[in-house]
């Protein structure tokens, strides 16, 4: 694990150091990939957008200004903007929740059975999130999975924190009406 700070690594990336880019990638590949995946609901698209996010990071590294927020927020903003653009572009010709396409497996092996159950629950969650409007889904993903504060999300998205809270309440209401929460209670 590279002990250098994000700030140090992004400065080196701006100077053309691919090893610094690799260190940043190793640090953020999982959160960025999962942010895109849960926002877009499509693994193939998430893979492409992860690649595009770090390609943009390379090109735009000189523009990062630590006075305007953390590196993590800046990187998430790049990923979210790319996801929004791609989702709106493909809105009419793409089935967003391709996780549904996984065929159900049947086996007597208890480990396989548990994996199938996990996969089904995950698909259920993906369907739930997919049923939310994009701006609701975004705030739910950033709050529940990435633990960002409303003020931080507000700086990233340009939406007032009060509006984000209202969106979050409404999203939770919608989720409650869509999901059989008893399935997840244990």
């Amino acid at each position, binding site marked *: 694990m590279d002990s250098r700070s994000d700030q140090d690594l992004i400065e080196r990336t701006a100077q053309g150091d691919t090893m610094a880019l690799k260190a940043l990638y190793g640090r953020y*590949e999982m959160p960025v990939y999962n942010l895109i995946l*849960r926002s877009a609901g499509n693994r193939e698209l*998430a*893979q492409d957008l992860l690649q595009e996010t770090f390609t943009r990071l*390379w090109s735009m590294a000189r523009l990062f200004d630590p006075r305007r927020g953390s590196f993590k927020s800046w990187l998430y903003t790049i990923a979210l903007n790319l996801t929004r653009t791609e989702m709106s572009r493909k809105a009419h010709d793409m089935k967003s929740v391709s996780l549904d396409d996984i065929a159900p497996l049947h086996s007597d092996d208890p480990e396989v059975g548990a994996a199938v159950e996990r996969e089904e629950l995950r698909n259920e969650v993906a369907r739930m999130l997919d049923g939310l409007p994009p701006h609701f889904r975004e705030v739910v993903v950033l709050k529940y999975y990435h633990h960002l*504060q409303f003020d931080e999300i507000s700086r990233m998205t340009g939406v007032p924190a009060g509006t984000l809270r209202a969106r979050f*309440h409404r999203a939770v209401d919608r989720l409650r009406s869509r999901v059989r929460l008893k399935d997840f*209670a244990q």
Partner: protein
Amino acid sequence: MSCDNKNPVLTLYFHEGRPSREKSIRSHLETCEECRNYLKMLEMTGRCLDAWEDEKPAPETFDRILSALPARPPRPEPARTSNPLFPLAGIAAAIAVILAELSLVQRLLARLPFWNSLGQSWPLRDLGSAGLSVLTFFALGAFAALALAPFLYFQSRHNGSCS
């Protein structure tokens, strides 16, 4: 705390408030069933969303990123510091040249026999020669601009196609 406003419950659930604030929200929850139910719903939704665990991207992704990296754009050149007196000096020099040329043309025109025939009516002679010299000067300028126009046009097209 108004129970119409669920924001304090969010503050408690996501631990975004100070300990004293969270303590006061907790004490409210003891007496408010509505807020208690909302907190339970947040917890339940959180457990439900946890079912979608983090996934790993494909291991070859970084290699693909490296191969797709664009050439680093050149750093922008620092802006040249210009001398603020330079444009003023240039304009003054141009005006001086124009006035000198006008004076020369006026003197040449005044030597023509036609002007001498005007005799004593000096205002007509002097003002007329000045006006005619200005017209002559600008006519020559327009002629030069029109003569250079095709060259400048093709030059700009050539520069545009190379950029």
